């Protein structure tokens, strides 16, 4: 069997070699390991050795010629073997794999204006062996600089509309939160930089300030309090799941879990409470809100925010509840819903919904939710999927509660049932995690006395 002789990479950085001298003639017998030719690498003159026994039938690179690594340099075979097919493809391209690296090298050197004179071997003879560098061929060559490209439109610079505004990042954020136009604010910092105190002064002066609270604590920016949450850096698996599932559906890879809960005991409880007096009346929705909040407090892994490079797990439960208004959807927030009494939740939910419709919500009443609920039951919707309110991990969609024929202990009975569907951000919540949360929720809803515990 014939053995091909290739131009080998005789140094870690060698891309091409110059065949200095053949040491064997065509027709000479050669043994494996024997030197066939001398090759000048980028570092030294090295020997190209035979990788098989036989007769050097063909020499395919001329002395003095340079060839990229991988080029067929010759053929070793037995005296009578037909080597025509092997020789036919010679001299064109290196055998498979890498693109002709020599060309890339040349291009780059020309672009950079460097000379491509190869180093003389004696210069490198005494050096430490060079560590292998990234192969030049791996680096995409720089696009050649075009001398004239009139057709390419020059990028238009951003219009400097009303003059440059200098401001600290914090001032920019505060201004945007308070709806202030930075152009209307006078900066008191170096070079007229607008800083926090300028925003506060402007907000206090202008009636536009939406919140009196903002001036009450001048040095305290609106930030979450210590201990309200803890952040976890993304593990490798979380990163991978996020990336791959994100590619699969939209920016938030959502999946849905639907469950049907029995409301018999909820109904019994409501009835019993209503009998105690009007002030004890609660709606099914109130119970569901309370149950969801309590379940969330037991499942911090669901009560979470996706922050891109980490997941924020909240220790407090601020429950958002989607409210339809004429303007569109808004999600007011019941703060610390898990710790509030059902009567408080009931009253607050009503109040928030009312003010939402009147467009009278304050910013802190519709920001900061850790998880949300949407209820379309009043529209007679059996079940639906709600869209996650980013950066939250999920949202619970509640359908209508209605009497249904169900089988209990083998007997058909009529029961009040409700269907809920949880949309889950798969970057945070895995299927089983969401399912466990719904399990807890079912236990609470089907045993509502647990909510008073």
């Amino acid at each position, binding site marked *: 069997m014939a053995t091909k002789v290739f131009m080998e990479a005789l140094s870690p950085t060698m891309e091409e070699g110059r065949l200095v001298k053949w040491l064997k003639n065509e027709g000479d017998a050669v043994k494996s390991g024997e030197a066939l030719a001398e090759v000048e690498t980028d570092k030294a003159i090295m020997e190209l050795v035979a990788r098989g026994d036989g007769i050097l039938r063909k020499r395919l690179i001329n002395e003095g010629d340079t060839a990229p690594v991988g080029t067929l340099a010759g053929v070793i075979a037995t005296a009578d073997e037909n080597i025509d097919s092997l020789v036919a493809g010679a001299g064109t391209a290196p055998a498979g794999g890498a693109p002709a690296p020599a060309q890339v090298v040349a291009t780059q050197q020309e672009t950079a204006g460097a000379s491509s004179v190869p180093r003389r071997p004696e210069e490198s003879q005494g050096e430490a062996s060079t560590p292998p560098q990234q192969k030049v061929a791996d680096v995409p060559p720089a696009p050649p600089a075009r001398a004239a490209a009139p057709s390419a439109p020059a990028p238009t610079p951003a219009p400097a509309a009303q003059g440059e505004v200098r401001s*600290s*990042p*914090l*001032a*920019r*954020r505060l201004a945007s939160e308070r709806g202030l136009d930075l152009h209307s604010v006078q900066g*008191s*910092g*170096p070079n007229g930089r607008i*800083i*926090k*105190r300028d925003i506060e002064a402007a907000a206090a002066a202008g009636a536009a300030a939406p919140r009196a609270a903002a001036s009450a604590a001048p*040095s*305290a*920016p609106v*930030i979450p309090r*210590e201990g309200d949450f803890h*952040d976890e850096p993304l593990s490798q698996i979380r990163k991978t799941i996020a990336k791959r599932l994100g590619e699969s559906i939209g920016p938030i890879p959502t999946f849905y879990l639907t469950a049907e809960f029995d409301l018999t005991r909820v109904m019994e409880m409501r009835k019993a409470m209503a009998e105690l007096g009007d002030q004890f009346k609660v709606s099914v929705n109130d119970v569901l809100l309370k149950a969801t909040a309590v379940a969330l407090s037991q499942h911090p892994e669901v009560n979470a925010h996706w922050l891109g490079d980490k997941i924020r797990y909240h220790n407090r439960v601020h429950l958002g509840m989607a409210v339809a208004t004429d303007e569109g959807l808004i999600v007011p927030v019941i703060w610390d819903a898990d710790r509030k009494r059902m009567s408080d939740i009931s009253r607050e939910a009503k109040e928030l919904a009312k003010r939402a419709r009147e467009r009278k919500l304050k910013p802190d009443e519709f920001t900061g939710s850790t998880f949300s609920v949407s209820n379309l039951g009043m529209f007679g919707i059996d079940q639906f999927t709600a869209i996650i309110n980013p950066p939250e991990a999920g949202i619970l969609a509640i359908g209508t509660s209605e009497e249904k024929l169900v089988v209990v202990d083998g007997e058909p009975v009529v029961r009040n049932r409700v269907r809920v569907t949880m949309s889950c951000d798969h970057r945070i919540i895995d299927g089983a995690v969401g399912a466990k949360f719904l399990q807890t929720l079912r236990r609470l809803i089907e045993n509502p006395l647990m909510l008073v515990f």
Partner: protein
Amino acid sequence: MPVITYRDALGAAIREEMQRDDRVFLMGEEVAVYQGAYKVSKGFLQEFGEMRVVDTPITELGFAGVGVGAAMVGLRPVIEFMTWNFALLALDQVVNAAAKMLYMSGGQYKIPIVFRGPNGAALQLSAQHSQAWESWLAHIPGLKVIAPGTPYDAKGLLKSAIRDDNPVCFLEGEMLYNTKGEVPDEEYLIPLGKADLKRQGEHCSIITHGKMVLVAMQAADQLAKEGINIDVVDLRTIRPMDVEAIGESVRKTNRAVVLEEGWEICGVGAQVVDYIQRDCFDYLDAPVIRVHQADTPMPYAKGLERAAKPDLPKAIAAVRKVMYLD
């Protein structure tokens, strides 16, 4: 609670660990018969004998390597450099051997070793003896780097360092050995990689470590008289750095001064500022300012030396600047 010196806190940490674990030994120049160039190992030779308290020739590269070799086969050396300035001679062993052994052996050989000694400038010791090395060491993956500023931290961190299964560089403040602080009698450990909020305030953060913790506390005291309240974040561990603690503080105060003993270029403070710009960009109300040694070798003359070192007036000036007060 008893009040003891930083020196005695370090000694107590090593002594307790040597009593607890007979794989732990102390090796270095003058540690045994002389009882330590800074008297950290006073009484050790008598208590533990010459096999566990080992005087070496003046041969930093050699005995650092001896420590690494002993650690490879299961001992837990504490290697004392008379100062970190001399440890430069041993850097090949610290960087090329200790820091990389676990990785290049594919997890087979861990190096539980502590390299420790005084670091930073003292008084008028001039150029070759007045240097803070933490940024050099913290650059190296595989090393942990500690720089405690108080006796309490020194003891708790050194005990954790000796129990850690990785090479730990423990940088003691040369000027801190005589400082005193409360250290409980009962055993305690301080986890590596956790900063300590030494003082709480809402107006500006000073992020610092080692000897400069004292300067930061003095600055905070003075500024408090003007109604400026400082958050003093003592990093304690330089690598791994407590990024969370830095972020928490700066997001609260919106302003930061980074105070360190070493030089500016590629210093520890440069890394702290990088974390701040990444994690706290939208919370910054002023550029972060760094306070550090002048970009010169340390001069000898008193006046020149004072001018070169970071100190209380410089720290206060920096705070006033980020507060837009000047």
